[in-house]
């Protein structure tokens, strides 16, 4: 229909594909002496699904917290679309287009499911009005199949629905990079399958994804790239099938006796 516009979009995307959308350089994070991140270099390119794996305490969640601005890094830089965003407030980073979800869902408990999602639309870069935000929220509820529980309060819905609410709310903020912190933890096999499908559909809607996940089966199915963290350092970075065969990765993940 609008050929010109489509061509334009394609050319922009080709440009973007070469340049990383989100990048961290020599990122260090220390909490009163504890070195959670020891100089992490990572470049995420548009269209990727980067799986962030590693044992507990390896710095995965810290990395997400630093990238979303919740923690200010001790040293290093964070670059988004070529712009240095190190040290910016979380709300400013969110409005630029970096979204996140929480491992344990954290909905606003006095707002309904609908209001939770509308909230994100109200405070994103284009800041919709309350009524427009609610109208927009229905689409995200449809997408995450939460329409039937739209008027319920979060404590009244089940865990999977709360996890989907996290997704819906993050999507309503219109991120170009979405960081998912263990979206599958605590779900049963059927729910996991449904959630994996959901992540794929989010990816198809042109959202670059960074996903923290422990389930290797899911990581190989979803990820276009796998990054292994161990003790705050990057151990491996590459195709999931290749990375998972590396002896040092197996040792870091499973312990020495299995190597």
């Amino acid at each position, binding site marked *: 229909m609008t050929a010109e516009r489509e061509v334009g979009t394609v050319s922009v995307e080709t440009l973007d594909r070469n340049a990383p959308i989100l990048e961290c350089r020599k990122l260090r994070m220390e909490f009163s002496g504890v070195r959670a991140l020891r100089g992490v270099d990572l470049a995420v390119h548009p269209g990727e699904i980067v799986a962030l794996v590693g044992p507990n305490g390896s710095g995965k969640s810290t990395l997400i917290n630093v990238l979303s601005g919740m923690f200010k890094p001790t040293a290093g830089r964070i670059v988004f679309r070529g712009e240095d965003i190190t040290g910016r407030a979380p709300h400013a980073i*969110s409005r630029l287009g970096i979204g996140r979800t929480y491992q344990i869902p954290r909905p606003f408990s006095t707002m309904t499911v609908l209001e939770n999602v509308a909230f994100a639309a109200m*405070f994103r870069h284009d800041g919709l009005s309350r009524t427009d935000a609610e109208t927009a929220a229905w689409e995200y509820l449809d997408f995450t199949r939460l*329409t*039937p529980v*739209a008027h319920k309060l979060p404590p009244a819905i089940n865990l999977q629905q709360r996890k989907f609410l996290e997704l819906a709310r993050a999507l309503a903020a219109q991120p170009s990079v979405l960081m998912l912190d263990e979206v599958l933890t605590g779900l049963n096999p059927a729910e996991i399958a449904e959630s994996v499908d959901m992540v794929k559909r989010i990816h198809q809607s042109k959202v670059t994804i960074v996903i923290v996940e422990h389930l290797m089966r899911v990581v190989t199915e979803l990820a276009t790239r796998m990054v292994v963290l161990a003790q705050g350092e990057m151990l491996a970075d590459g195709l999931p099938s290749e990375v998972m065969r590396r002896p040092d990765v197996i040792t870091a993940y499973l312990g020495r006796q299995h190597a």
Partner: protein
Amino acid sequence: MTRRTFISFLIAGVALALVPNLRGVADFPVYNLVFMYSVFYWVTQATSWNILSGYSGYFSFGQAAFVGVGLYTTAVLTAHYHVNFFLTIAAAGAMSTLLAVVLGFVSFRLRSLRGEVFTLLTLIVALALAAVAQLSDFIDGGQGRTVRAPDYPSVFGSYNDLIYRMGLVMALVAVMAACAIQHSKFGRGLFAIRDDEDVAEALGTPTFRYKMIAFAVSGFLAGAAGSVNSLQVSYVDIDGTFTFITPLFVILMSTLGGRNHWMGPVLGAVVIFTLQERLAGGGFASISQIILGAVLALTILFLPEGLYLRLRTRWRLATVVFVVSMAVQTMVGASGAVLTQFLISLVLVVASLGVPTRYLERVRPLRPASAKTPGRPVTASVVNATIEPEQVIHVDR
């Protein structure tokens, strides 16, 4: 705030502003006017507190500090510099706003221990300011200060009428501000801060700025109302100003009425002040604090979400109880003041609202709540969607 709400406020304001004129028509004691002024004062204070502490969840114990700064700004400016009283109201509001901004800047910057640090800081500031006022002869020096009645155009009626109407204007400004904030995006942001501040920030809410604005508005209202109140008290002293009664009252009022809605502090202020005033007037001043403590305990047990939410579902019952109570007392010829009858009726209404829902349902099953569920807007993309009625619950906010 919609235009309809705005007009409703104006109509209510005009109606209340005409109350002093009743004295020419019917038997309306001046005391009742003074009483109503005090209700307005406490509505303003409770609303001021609720805008920050109720909406955003940052509990302040420093209400007296803002009231005190307002009062003493007016007292000092009129005594030392002979500034026109009406101008000092703005100055008083500005000084309290300044205090709020400084306090907010210090305590809201800290990421960890946010609420706790804030509560302690506000608690200490009232004490510190009382000490400053005590030490400084310029401010008070332990002598107290008299605020002289200002000259004003005679169209405003008697001095009591003037105070009444000024109190009304303050209350109206405060309540309209609280209502406008509650229904705005800003208000949504404050509620989100109360629920989960980190998430609110991560979703794009400038939490620091929002808290600062809420605190500034709260401080302004408290200070300006404090300044107006200097006309009523006419004599300002340290113990009476920086008292713990003020923060305790506003917390009790907002909690009883409900902290999620602008109406909460209004209802709470009417009930609590009437109760307090009748207890003091009836010679029960010594035990009034025990009774207020009991009210707080009962509120937490039976009305955890406040009177207002219950009133929305039981307004018919409440109206009937109130009207019947007033009528019976009048017919029986219950001796004494209308205010006592009013208090008894209020207590009965509160009690009827406090009855747990399960007992009421035994008497008469309540209507299914889903009847009032706000519907989904029908747009092209959602026409095919279906909502199972039994899956939808009505959330009363």
